[in-house]
């Protein structure tokens, strides 16, 4: 009897062994794959993520003046392939483990981004924008030629270059 009481008292003093989940945040182990987040300021719309997504959760819908980017959270298998292959680091897998949701919120659980195209400064044609972060990180940001010409469509860029070549060579 006395030993039982001893054990009970010792356990009460130790506190609960289980976590008080909804009322208290729990620590997650390093490398845990949780909800996926998307940063539209870094996205270049290359569709690599669409290509590698195992669950076909990522959709890129190209429209006339913009493109839509969607990650359906319910379809995502947390495989981290998108983060691995994203060339600019626009997609990140967080340690957010809150995966329970109400049935009515099922279609609201998505990462959504709308990226408008820019217009060529010469001929007003629509082209995909080159994010500044990408120019700084990926292309080291040392050469301003990329940034200066990123608002011009490839056709006009070629024409400009031909003009420059002719000017330089005619000397």
């Amino acid at each position: 009897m006395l030993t039982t009481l001893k054990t009970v008292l010792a356990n009460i003093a130790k506190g609960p062994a289980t976590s008080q989940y909804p009322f208290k945040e729990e620590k997650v182990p390093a490398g845990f794959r949780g909800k996926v987040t998307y940063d539209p300021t870094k996205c270049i719309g290359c569709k690599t993520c669409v290509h590698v997504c195992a669950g076909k959760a990522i959709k890129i819908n190209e429209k006339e003046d913009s493109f839509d980017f969607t990650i359906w959270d319910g379809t995502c298998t947390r495989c981290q392939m998108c983060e691995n292959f994203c060339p600019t680091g626009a997609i990140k897998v967080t340690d957010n483990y809150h995966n329970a949701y109400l049935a009515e919120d099922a279609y609201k659980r998505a990462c959504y981004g709308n990226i408008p195209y820019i217009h060529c400064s010469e001929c007003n044609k629509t082209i995909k924008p080159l994010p500044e972060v990408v120019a700084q990180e990926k292309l080291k940001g040392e050469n301003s030629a990329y940034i200066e010409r990123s608002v011009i469509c490839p056709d006009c860029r070629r024409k400009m270059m031909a003009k420059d070549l002719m000017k330089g060579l005619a000397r």
Partner: protein
Amino acid sequence: MSKRVYFLPNICAGCEECLEACAREHQGDSLDYIEMVDLYPVPMRCFHCADAPCAQICPSKAIQVSAEGAVVADKSKCIGCGSCLLVCPFGIPKVDTDKKLMKKCDLCIHRLKEGKIPACVQNCSLKALQFGDVEEYEAAKRKKAASKLQKLGDSGL
């Protein structure tokens, strides 16, 4: 060092023979351009940058700088995303959205390996396109300028 295709001005007649030669070499797709500047035709192709931005941004690492100094796109790795088109300072890559492939000048790398020169250079009837070493080209230009200076000195000016 790496060899490139050079263009000599005021010789090109705009006959588009280089475009046709390119199409013959690359399964019917011409990968070169001829841009008209006022009245003068300027043949353009990939400049094969030493520090190519397209190779840096390519998400599937399909674009690589080869040992010959040519910037070559691997067809089996290309996903046709068009990122290279976004950063190319010259607007050279051609993206085929149906086949999801990017096509650009590869300096006729299959011909280079056989010891031949690129098809556009070989077929240029006016020799407006030249294929040569960067350093050789610089040396020839220096020599030309030096001989001009020599002449000036001789004439007593």
